[in-house]
């Protein structure tokens, strides 16, 4: 899970190997907020897989690659 300077850098780094998914850094920021913002809450409770999947779905991260299980 890595940050690259641009999509061209991802492509060059992969060097023809099969890649995964590339998303804009703004989408990553939204994902991080949704995924991690409750992590230090005193009353934190574990996320169910369905909750985490709903976060991905809500951000448009859909399809087989983004299925948690």
């Amino acid at each position, binding site marked *: 899970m890595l940050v690259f300077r641009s999509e061209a850098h991802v492509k060059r780094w992969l060097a023809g190997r099969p890649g*995964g998914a590339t*998303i804009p850094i703004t989408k990553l920021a939204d994902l991080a907020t949704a995924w991690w913002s409750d992590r230090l809450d005193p009353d934190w409770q574990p996320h169910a897989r369905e909750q985490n999947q709903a976060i991905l779905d809500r951000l448009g991260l859909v399809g087989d690659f983004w299925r948690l299980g």
Partner: protein
Amino acid sequence: MSPSDVVIRNATYAAFVDLGRAPGTHEVAERLGVATTDVLAAWRRLHEGHALVLDDNGAILMANPFSAIETPHRVEAAGRTWFANCGWDAFGIGAALGVDCSIHTTCPDCSERVDIEVRGGRPLDESPVFHVLVPAREWWTDIRFT
């Protein structure tokens, strides 16, 4: 995950933030008035439940998004420097702390620095991209690689 394990997990995270580093079992035990063996047993269950990651010696390696060890993903937030486990976690540290942050990492392709200021949850430089190599269902198969 039992309620008592959640209490130990939450105390572990609170200690990580207060100390600015991963706590030892004794530091969490003192906070809660429990035995260190109880903390370690809970940590092992939390590790199995993917709520944190231990190293081979039973010490905390990851309390996601925080890393207990130095990584290429450095975050300045809340007046401290933290290490994140990956690019996603780097953004997660600011989100978890609820503060603006500065992320410093390197592009795996060209090894150039990538510095990102995050204000109000938004990156000021929107030109970088994020690549996830491993499909979601395999993230925990080898979390250190992921």
